């Protein structure tokens, strides 16, 4: 299982999903209305590395993080 965590203001507890690529995770999250509205504006990290393609292969124990718009300072 792949763990998906929702950072900052998304305010949702982590979930475990059955996914072999990031595209699978995208498909699962698009079905969750609580999360879907954040997807357009969120960046994505896999195991704390920023990613820019849905082709990323995932294995059990991997961690996907959603990062909504930021504002430090």
């Amino acid at each position, binding site marked *: 299982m792949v763990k998906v965590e929702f*950072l*900052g*203001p998304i305010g949702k507890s982590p979930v475990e999903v059955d996914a072999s690529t*990031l*595209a699978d*995770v*995208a*498909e699962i*999250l*698009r079905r969750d209305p609580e999360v879907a509205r954040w*997807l*357009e*504006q*969120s*960046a*994505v*990290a896999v195991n*704390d*590395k*920023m*990613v*820019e*393609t*849905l082709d990323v292969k995932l294995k059990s124990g991997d961690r996907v*993080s*959603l*990062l*909504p*718009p*930021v*504002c*430090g*300072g």
Partner: protein
Amino acid sequence: MVLIYRGPIEVEALLSRWYGAERNGNYGAMVSFVGTVREEGGIEALSFDIYRPLLDKWFEGWRERLAEKGALLAMAHSEGDVPVHTSSFACAIFSPKRRLALEMLDAFVEDFKANAPIWKYDVIGGKRIYAAERSTPMAGSGLLAKG
């Protein structure tokens, strides 16, 4: 590593410590920036969430970039509530000459605003409200909405 404070930064002590630690390092310039919470829009405080693993990675990238130029970077940020007229962000660059430190400080703070994994909330009437309209989507945002 970024220094994280729970609540406001103790600015006087921190800047003094940074200055003292590098004074003998033969840097000709120390340029610092301190961000202080302004009283506006009825807020009591700002509040912050931080994702530390990625913040440290982002910061180390900048540290290395500056080290290649012979400069040193230090940064501190608050987590949790930071009342008005106290400070949530401080950074300093030490460099052999002033021009590099002045220019890199500007570039560093701009990138910090756009890409450091920190989330800001207004605290009004004890409630924490995400500062959505002041926030910036990070590079690569929207990936999971595709397909």
